[in-house]
């Protein structure tokens, strides 16, 4: 395979090497979190975590486990860097991001460590493209201190049901209100826009509801502008878990299947909108 012979000589110098037969298994999941230019990459022997943040109030993480890669070699416990995500996506799709069957771009992603660019070797149809993307010092991602012991309410839904609601959400509403309760209305999404208020209810015994564990009634509002990017992750996913903790912080976790049917996760954390007075 042409890509593996490319860098035999400097194989020892790379602290991280990750290969995919189909670059879409990385680019598609990254598209689900591309709402800002910069992303923090954090690689461990378990795999790759890519983080994008917005104003310290929203954080999206994409997890690609090491098993997803055809080759994954890491020489340190933890390797971190920051890159321009839009540039990275343009490079991963350099051959046009074709979805034609049997046509895929092979990827070899290499990193030598602090101060070095992220090097991508991409190959499709015998043509090789080499990209060197400049890296920056990774910022420390915000710790939302969201732990499962503090979770008050949790539901798992089939994404199909939420996709419809999210595609119809009234974007003139500044907030998306989420109500979760052990009693009616169980799980409700609400908007307050120019054309009036809208509510989407999901009863706990609905076919779409795979898990329903709500311990107390909670209503929280989140800025629509912050949650809007999560629609991309929803579109790719087959299942989503919605959790809130005692502070009203929101965790959305999406189960995504890639082209080869393998599972990856995307999660979004969002702070509640502080401008709302206590109900």
């Amino acid at each position, binding site marked *: 395979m042409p890509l593996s012979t490319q860098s035999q000589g400097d194989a020892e110098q790379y602290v991280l090497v990750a290969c995919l037969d189909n670059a879409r298994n990385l680019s598609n999941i990254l598209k689900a979190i591309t709402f800002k230019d910069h992303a923090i990459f954090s690689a461990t022997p378990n795999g790759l975590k890519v983080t994008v943040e917005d104003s310290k109030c929203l954080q999206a993480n994409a997890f690609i486990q090491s098993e997803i890669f055809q080759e994954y070699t890491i020489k340190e416990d933890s390797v971190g860097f920051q890159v321009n995500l839009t540039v990275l996506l343009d490079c991963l799709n350099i051959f046009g991001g074709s979805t034609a069957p049997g046509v895929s771009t092979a990827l070899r992603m290499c990193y030598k460590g602090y101060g070095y*660019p992220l090097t991508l070797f991409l190959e499709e149809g015998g*043509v*090789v*493209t080499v*990209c060197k993307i400049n890296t920056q010092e990774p910022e420390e991602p915000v710790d939302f201190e969201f732990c499962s012991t503090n979770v008050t309410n949790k539901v798992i839904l089939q994404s199909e049901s939420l996709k419809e609601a999210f595609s119809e959400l009234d974007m003139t509403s500044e907030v998306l209100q989420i109500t979760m309760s052990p009693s009616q209305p169980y799980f409700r999404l609400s908007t307050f826009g120019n054309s009036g208020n809208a509510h989407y209810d999901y009863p706990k015994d609905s076919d779409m509801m795979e898990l329903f564990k709500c311990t107390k009634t909670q209503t929280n509002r989140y800025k629509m502008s912050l949650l809007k990017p999560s629609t991309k992750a929803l579109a790719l996913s087959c299942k989503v878990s919605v959790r809130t903790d005692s502070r009203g912080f929101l965790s959305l976790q999406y189960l995504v299947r890639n082209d080869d049917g393998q599972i990856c996760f995307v999660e979004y954390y969002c702070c509640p909108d502080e401008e709302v007075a206590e109900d």
Partner: protein
Amino acid sequence: MEGVSPEDNEICLEVTPENLSRALKTVQNAKAVKPTLSSVSRLVTHDVPVEVIPRRLWHEFKEPGMPDFHVSIYLPPLKTMRNVIDRMKNLSNFLVMEANLNGEMNLKIDTDLVSVTTHFKDLGNPPWGDEASQQGGPSQSRDPETMAQTRVDIRKLQQFLMGQQVNPSKAMCNIVHERMVHLILLHEDVSLQYFIPAVA
């Protein structure tokens, strides 16, 4: 058809491309289209306004001759070129095209954020490379590995690739090192040539 005179057996016409293209669009399904200076066909008449160019101005419209190039090479599949260049345009305004007499061509961009190089191999070099070298042109006894390169505005290259609706029977490119890229498409009786000058 006859030209202006037996010695100047040509007529030069200037048309607005949009008018001509509009007229041709409507005859897409016709078996044959014949342009005449003033015609009334039995079925369809399109009057496309033209200006006849007087002989004294013909020198302004002379077809540029084939330049003394350093490397001549067949282009890779235009669709692949187009896909790559479309993405490169998101990253940079300028691109370097380089090629050698070993059938290798590279497209390169280099900015503060990123550098990207696409390598095409086994493209083949047109036989007239040999002729030029016999006449003592710049490609004479040239080391086949040495690249000739030119930096061009990506949008100009993109424009050339956008125009391709028909698959050409031959597509090639002549590079004059750091001066110009000359692109040629041949399809049956028609040839389309693009001259793209280098940018600093």
